[in-house]
């Protein structure tokens, strides 16, 4: 038996339509001819094959054959005596065709026809299955080609709109519809749509209706009749009778819809499968575009943070002031790129040397912004402020409203050292306790704040406190990033170990003391990430002259 050959690739039209008896007869004409000859040898002719409606499909060209009478109008077979005609049944038992010949009472020929009808039925059934499989293959082939085209379009276009338009062009062509659209919702809730072959005069509000409905339902909507369309999606009839709208999802979250409108025939399951597959591709395209946008945004943020860090680094003293008999060291290590801690050392000879350490509540960019303001105010008001309290008052006056607006405050310790009298006058506005090592008693004392931070109250409550310094005295001004360093068990370091550390290392240089403090918190944290900025200023009265060491560590 010849194996029927189908054109490749098979056309969707041929593969999608139901298998007809005349197609079958054309495909198996050799078989039918052999059967015809067998019948003829047995004295039976002609052999007839009729379709389910009784219309003769074999012989295709009846010339030379004597056919039974047929209805002139319908073409249906009109059987007369002496004919044996049997149904060719499919697996469901339905008569798919009729096989017959004029047996004229020959029972053996009637049996032959009966056997052949059964064989043809089985053959017809297999042929139908093959036909269906070919149809599915054709659909899959179409989808593969579509996916290839989509992937090609994705590579070819860098702009999201062009890529989506290209996908729509493919969907519209393959589904043989007039118009297509993709609708997505932006972060601020605005529905954006890309259309293909959209009628110029047609209102796009229709797309919003379909987007709202289908994105809410989360499943495809197929409307094949005008009335259904109008019921389910009001207003759709204005553009086309039929529509197919499918949600576009990313990780089970609907992020848009893709829709096809105005098809000449009903949408089939093949159309639906194709649009499902394209919706998956659109989801991938949208997700990739979102990630790309996120990357660009992150890169911009990273660059801006780098610039902010550079600006902030520039605010820290590049060189510490040089004063005979005073050993200074400082360092600030932010927890993030930019921080809320700051220190400054201001000197306008022959006036006092000012030491400032501050900590803006909050971290990151908002805190860094206020660090910049504080730096500016400190530098502009230092020369006009005769004492630490007056400088803090000025700072509170200038920054109070802005800090209130931003729900922040600044803890600050300011000390003025007068080299001529060796007196240190200080004021502490809510800042962490300052460690003072008294060289004469060899004991460390804590100087706690006497007023709340800058920005808490309209008036400053801190007072100036004055002491006379002696050789070997050490002042360590830190931010709370030191004593609030968490250990692996979550417990905080606390101030006591730092007091002990200073008492043990007070004989060392300011830089060495500073380094011991950083080593201590590093050892206590045991590799845990630094949760807060850490800033330290070490001021030591040293009979051996001055040694300066300042650092601001950038991450």
């Amino acid at each position, binding site marked *: 038996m010849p194996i029927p050959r189908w054109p490749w690739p098979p056309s969707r039209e041929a593969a999608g339509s139901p298998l007809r008896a005349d197609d079958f007869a054309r495909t198996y004409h050799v078989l039918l001819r052999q059967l015809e000859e067998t019948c003829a040898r047995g004295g039976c002719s002609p052999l007839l094959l009729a379709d389910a409606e009784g219309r003769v499909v074999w012989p295709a060209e009846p010339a030379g054959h004597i056919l039974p009478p047929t209805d002139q109008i319908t073409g249906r077979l009109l059987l007369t005596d002496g004919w044996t005609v049997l149904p060719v049944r499919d697996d469901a038992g339905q008569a798919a065709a009729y096989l017959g010949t004029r047996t004229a009472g020959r029972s053996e020929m009637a049996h032959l026809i009966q056997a052949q009808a059964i064989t043809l039925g089985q053959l017809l059934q297999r042929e139908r299955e093959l036909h269906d499989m070919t149809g599915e293959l054709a659909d899959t082939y179409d989808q593969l080609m579509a996916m290839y085209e989509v992937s090609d379009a994705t590579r070819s276009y860098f702009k999201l709109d062009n890529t989506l338009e290209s996908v729509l062009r493919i969907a519209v062509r393959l589904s043989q519809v007039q118009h297509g659209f993709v609708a997505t919702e932006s972060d601020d809730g605005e529905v954006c749509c890309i259309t293909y072959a959209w009628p110029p005069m047609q209102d796009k509000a229709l797309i919003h209706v379909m987007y709202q409905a289908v994105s809410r339902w989360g499943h495809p909507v197929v409307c094949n009749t005008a009335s259904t369309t109008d019921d389910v999606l009001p207003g759709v009839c204005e553009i086309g009778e039929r529509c197919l709208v499918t949600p576009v999802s990313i990780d089970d979250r609907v992020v848009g819809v893709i829709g096809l409108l105005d098809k000449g025939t009903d949408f089939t399951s093949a159309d639906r499968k194709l649009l499902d597959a394209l919706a998956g591709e659109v989801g991938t395209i949208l997700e990739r575009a979102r990630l790309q946008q996120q990357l660009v945004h992150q890169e911009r943020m990273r660059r801006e943070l780098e610039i902010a860090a550079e600006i902030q680094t520039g605010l820290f003293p590049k060189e510490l002031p040089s004063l005979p008999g005073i050993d200074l060291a400082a360092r600030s290590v932010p927890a993030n790129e930019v921080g809320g801690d700051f220190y400054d050392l201001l000197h306008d000879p022959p006036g006092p040397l000012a030491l400032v350490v501050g900590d803006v*509540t909050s971290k990151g960019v908002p805190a860094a912004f206020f660090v910049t303001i504080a730096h500016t105010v400190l530098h502009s008001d230092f020369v006009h402020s005769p004492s630490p309290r007056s400088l803090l008052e000025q700072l509170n006056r200038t920054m109070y409203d802005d800090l209130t607006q931003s729900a922040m*405050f600044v803890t600050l310790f300011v000390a003025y050292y007068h080299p001529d009298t060796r007196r240190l006058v200080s004021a502490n506005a809510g800042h962490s306790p300052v460690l003072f090592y008294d060289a004469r008693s060899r004991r460390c004392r804590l100087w*706690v704040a006497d007023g709340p931070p800058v920005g808490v109250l309209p008036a400053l409550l801190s007072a100036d406190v004055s002491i006379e310094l002696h050789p070997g005295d050490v002042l360590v001004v830190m931010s709370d990033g030191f004593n609030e360093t968490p250990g692996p068990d979550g417990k905080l370091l606390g101030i006591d170990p730092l007091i002990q550390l200073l008492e043990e290392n007070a004989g060392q240089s300011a830089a060495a003391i500073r380094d011991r403090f950083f080593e201590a918190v590093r050892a206590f944290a045991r590799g845990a990430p630094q949760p807060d900025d850490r800033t330290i200023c070490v001021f030591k009265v040293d009979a051996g002259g001055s040694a300066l060491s300042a650092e601001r560590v950038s991450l």
Partner: protein
Amino acid sequence: MDIQTQPIDNGSLITLSGRMDAQTAPPVREALQGQIDAGRSMLVVDMARVDFVDSSGLSVLVSSMKRSRQAGGDLILAGLNPQVRVIFELTRLDRAFEIYADPEMALAAIPGSSG
């Protein structure tokens, strides 16, 4: 962080429980701001069951205190446990807030209160 609110004269008694840090402070800010916006600017915050406050928590209390005072009320703290009290003492925020041993004493101290 658990936030309980009950009405008092011209304001509310807010009872907080848990840690007050960068993660838990924002809902407290919203709760306190919500009371002030609703005209209940006299706020008594019962902190007896708050075992930790970091700078974010302090910021929320300070900014809410400022807003309530701008609105003609105040934000009064009550029942600070020793660990939290130390934080207020070190930063000297105890000089900025009215602080009472318990909510009853705080309520009694409110001007015009019957308690």
